């Protein structure tokens, strides 16, 4: 235990005294955020106008619409035909079109028997951020209805509160992405580089000559990096809040939980790279080879849905996609941790698999 604390302390001291690394690992994400935020983020708030084509015109469809209208972030425009609505969508007057086909009422009365009823939602692919948010909102309302129908014991009632003041711009989309990027870079690239260099310089070998156990060493390394990453994430969130007024709508605990989960998963991958890399010089390119595509594909700067279809299955497997999505959902929409179970699960899966591989490939020298 003494060794664990001493090593953690030593690692934190090394971090703090390595002023240059400390500065640049913080300066880079903040710089990116500020530059992108000011150039792209000025689009102002999102106002989502939903075009509604109600072909059913039943009490049930009215109920759905009135539920949707409770959201102040959404405004509505009734359209008579689908074609009319779509053309407005193409012109940018509408961001989303919701169609309630005939037969909706009947289907609702069947109380959810058979396959779920599909409500077509059309959105503008060129304006994804906005349409995504809109979809999310529409989805929530529909979810509420369908759960009510099936007498679901809902844990979803919290939703409308976060949404009421929803006013999102690109910077809101960007900040969670930047935090995810920091976690990826600092841990995967950081661990790979540091461990490979310590090994090369014989630092690890010297420690192997003592009674120190490998797991104590790794545990201390993990702890120190968690503290450091936690603080860095907080600073970035603080800057985002002060400069751009980006707030966290969901629970802080949930954000912290995903920061920790992401840190652990990427650190484990970093340990694998450190194990594979024969020299510290080769660790950086290997880490770069893995991190670069992840930054572009994994929803850090661009929405995952913008990525080509054939890449989607790969993207769905990347840990970064789930980390950025989870952070974004928590921060922007205020989704609870419980409803991000899938993201948490996949990150945990990466963590466990990577950790097992890392412990097999780890070498002191």
């Amino acid at each position: 235990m003494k060794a664990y604390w001493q090593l953690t302390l030593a690692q934190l001291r090394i971090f703090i005294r390595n002023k240059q690394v400390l500065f640049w690992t913080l300066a880079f994400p903040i710089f990116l955020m500020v530059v992108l935020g000011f150039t792209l983020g000025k689009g102002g708030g999102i106002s989502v106008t939903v075009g509604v084509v109600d072909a059913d015109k039943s009490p049930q469809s009215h109920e759905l619409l009135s539920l949707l209208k409770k959201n102040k972030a959404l405004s509505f425009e009734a359209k008579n035909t689908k074609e009319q609505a779509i053309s407005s969508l193409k012109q940018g007057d509408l961001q989303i079109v919701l169609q309630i086909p005939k037969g909706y009422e009947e289907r609702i009365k069947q109380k959810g028997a058979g396959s779920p009823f599909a409500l077509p939602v059309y959105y503008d692919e060129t304006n994804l951020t906005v349409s995504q948010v809109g979809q999310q909102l529409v989805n929530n309302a529909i979810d509420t209805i369908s759960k009510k129908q099936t007498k679901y014991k809902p844990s979803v009632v919290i939703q409308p509160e976060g949404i009421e003041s929803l006013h999102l711009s690109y910077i809101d989309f960007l900040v969670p992405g930047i935090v995810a990027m920091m976690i990826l870079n600092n841990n995967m690239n950081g661990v790979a580089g540091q461990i490979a260099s310590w090994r090369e310089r014989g630092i690890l070998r010297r420690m192997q000559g003592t009674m120190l156990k490998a797991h104590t060493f790794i545990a201390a390394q993990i702890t120190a990096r968690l503290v450091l990453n936690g603080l860095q994430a907080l600073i970035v969130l603080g800057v985002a809040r002060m400069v751009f007024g980006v707030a966290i709508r969901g629970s802080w605990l949930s954000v912290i939980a995903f920061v920790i989960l992401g840190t652990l998963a990427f650190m484990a991958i970093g340990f694998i790279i450190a194990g594979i890399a024969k020299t510290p010089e080769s660790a950086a390119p290997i880490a770069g080879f893995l991190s670069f595509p992840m930054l572009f594909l994994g929803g850090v700067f661009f929405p995952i849905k913008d990525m080509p279809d054939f890449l989607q299955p790969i993207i769905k497997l990347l840990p970064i996609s789930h980390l950025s999505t989870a952070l974004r959902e928590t921060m922007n929409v205020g989704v609870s941790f419980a409803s991000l179970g899938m993201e948490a699960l996949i990150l945990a899966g990466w963590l466990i698999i990577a950790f097992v591989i890392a412990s097999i490939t780890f070498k002191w020298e």
Partner: protein
Amino acid sequence: MKQAESMITVDSLVKRYGNFTAVNGVTFQVQKGEVFGLLGPNGAGKTTTLEMLVGLRKPEEGTAFIGSFNIRKELQKVKEVIGVQLQSTTLFELLTVEEILQMYGSFYPKHLPIAELIDDMILTEKRKSRIKSLSGGQKQRLAIALALVHDPWVIFLDEPTTGLDPQARRTLWDIVLKLKKRGKTIVLTTHYMDEAHVLCDRIAIMDRGELIALDTPETLVRNLHAASAISFSVSSEVDLNEWAKVEGVTKADCKEKEVVLYSDDLQLTLTSLIQTASERQIALEDLQTRTATLEDVFIHMTGRSLREE
């Protein structure tokens, strides 16, 4: 040999790297309180032998005991009673002397008072300095302090003075002798003959993975049967037998144009050498005489110089 108890028992250790046998069946014992030197050129297997003893490499065959602990089966116990200084150690450069000693101390169940240890290693002024700012000699003394932090029985020093200036080497020698006085058992490798001579009670000479001699420095030199060495170079090669015929020569070595003659009677041999040279009209260049050293022992035994790669 002394009747003292044996602190280290090495029994036919073998280490191979692919087809290359780095250490080929080395056997020796080190007594408690002894300073034991492993001597040899680069690649002789000194470091590999030492690294097997401290558990950094697994021997293919043979075994060794530190005290009563088997290095193959009780490594954790072995590590508790040994202290290690590895060749060209690098440490966390951004930590201070005090901090890194505290950290290494925490790796063991108990450790010495850090302040005293720092005083002992003449690092008092550098207590709060970062490792980055230390000189080569100071870093080496810190490396030894780290080896001593848990008050081990046996201390392994791998080329402790390589790359140090003469002053720093002397300081380090004093430290080793001080440790010996306190009853520590010390195993060190070196390729400096003078160092081995000053520090070591006994010396094992290694070459190509094998132990080729093991004795006190004095006995090793005495066994050369020559008190003095005469070295010179010639412009064209001369048959070795010609040199052996010079009066008083007990042994003659020659490598290309460099010749070394060993003699118990320096004056007689020198006179005879000059005579032979002028009779045959051989020009002797760089003629030097010196007392025979361990270096000569080594050259004689292996036909190679210690510093040779």
